């Protein structure tokens, strides 16, 4: 198994006028893993993904995806043969039917997996003859996922993939992601749904205000961080709880939520 990063960026920077969307991001995503890309709205996740796919150009910095330069137009075309992407809005061509959309997408990928297409058509119950404009958001999301999963990608990039899906659809999607990863596809997905991330991710990258705030394995994070909810009859001052291992404190009513990076027992003792 190769350990050359599938995605590697160096000081990637992108601004829109005075707004700095991505500020010097250094990513290194290992192959055959599921990496969750987290961050608040406006943190720069979608911009970073668009930079990786060559949809937008960085102001400075460099990046490689599957060994191809993201700044080079010719490289970008080669790269897109091996990458599948599901965008945040999941918009597809309204004037096509589901069947036409599948046929159209299939024509670009010689490695198209017909068995995945059949399986997902069946699982997702997508009506072949329906126009895309008449599909619900959930159905459109399922179709976008089918188009991405069936093209046998080396790298699968998903931007908020579960948005618009019902709980069963989310469950099916997560299963499919794990199955694809076990077959050798690297998955890189952005999400706001922590339970999804906890269930399937091997690695987590957190973007905050355009900067990479955290790049760690999920196991490592579980080992290193604890969240403690403390309830008091009378809320103490935040400074009473603060100690070097306390990463953050949030209070709500008489409850205090504390994230601890070291020994949690010490914080509980102090709270007592």
């Amino acid at each position, binding site marked *: 198994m190769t350990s050359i990063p599938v995605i590697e960026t160096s000081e990637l920077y992108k601004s829109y006028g005075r707004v700095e969307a991505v500020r010097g991001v250094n990513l290194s995503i290992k192959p055959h893993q599921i990496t969750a890309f987290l961050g608040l709205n406006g943190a720069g996740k979608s911009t970073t993904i*668009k930079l990786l*796919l*060559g*949809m*937008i*150009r960085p102001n400075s910095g460099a990046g490689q995806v599957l060994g191809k330069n993201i700044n080079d*137009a*010719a490289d970008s*075309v*080669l790269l*897109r*043969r091996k*990458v*599948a*992407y599901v*965008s*945040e*809005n999941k*918009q*597809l*061509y*309204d*004037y*096509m039917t589901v069947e*036409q959309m599948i*046929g*159209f*997408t299939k*024509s*670009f*990928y010689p490695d198209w997996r017909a068995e995945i297409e059949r399986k997902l058509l069946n699982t997702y119950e997508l009506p072949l003859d329906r126009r895309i404009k008449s599909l619900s958001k959930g159905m459109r999301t399922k179709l*976008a996922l089918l188009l991405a999963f069936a093209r046998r990608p080396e790298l699968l990039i998903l931007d908020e993939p579960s948005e618009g899906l019902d709980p069963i659809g989310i469950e099916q999607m997560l299963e499919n992601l794990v199955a694809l990863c076990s077959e050798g596809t690297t998955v890189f997905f952005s999400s706001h749904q922590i339970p999804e991330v906890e269930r399937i991710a091997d690695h987590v990258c957190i973007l905050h205000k355009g900067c990479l705030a955290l790049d760690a394995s999920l196991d490592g994070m579980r080992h290193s961080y604890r969240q403690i909810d403390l309830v008091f009859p009378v809320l103490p001052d935040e400074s009473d709880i603060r100690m070097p291992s306390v990463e953050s404190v949030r209070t709500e009513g008489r409850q205090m939520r504390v994230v601890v990076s070291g020994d949690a027992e010490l914080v509980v003792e102090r709270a007592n």
Partner: protein
Amino acid sequence: MLWYKAWLETRSRFIIAIVGCTALCSTWIVEFSKLIPSSREVISPFYLLHAIHGVLAFVWILSVILLMMGGLLQEHAVGTSSFTLTLPVSRFHLMSVRIVMGLAQAFVLTVVPWLVMLFVFGSASKTYPISQICFHVFLLWSGGIVFVALAVLISSIVEGQYTAPVVGIGISVLLINALKAERLNPYSPWTFMVGSEYLQRRTGLLSGQFPLLHAAAFCSVAILLLWLSIRVIQQRDF
């Protein structure tokens, strides 16, 4: 399959345009034919065909502007560009397919109304030389591609499903009017498309050689505009 996409994207507009142009021209021929016998002046029926060609030219410009709307910028407005741009094809390829499809549709939109006009004209026991149809089609298409290219450029700069066609039609009307002055008239693609300078008023027929050099000049302008459109799209962030 990009051709298939380009066709599906434009087919409704194309069919409406071709039916509209054909119906309009045919109706005018029928109506004009009724007027000829009652006219005090001797009007050549060929002259009437040429006059209808002028109407066709104007409707043709409006049609090609609407036909050439679309492309990546419009896709960006409706949200599908993020799918199109992840297909393994270059932006140049995407643009080229769209442009060639547009030029082909514009050509059909030139030829079909003329063929139908010939048929309607012929059904009234009148014949019209094929060479005259070729001349009119040549003028209309080779001058008209400037408007095709202008529409592509506007659709590559102006975002919005409705804003872009309004701007396209506005700029075309401005261009037609701005080049109406006698000094500027030789540079007007509209004047060239209508072909009045080649018309013999007595016979109502176009005369002279095909103005190949003039047509080549308009083709060059169109190529320049199309190249500019491709560059704009290649440089743009989506």
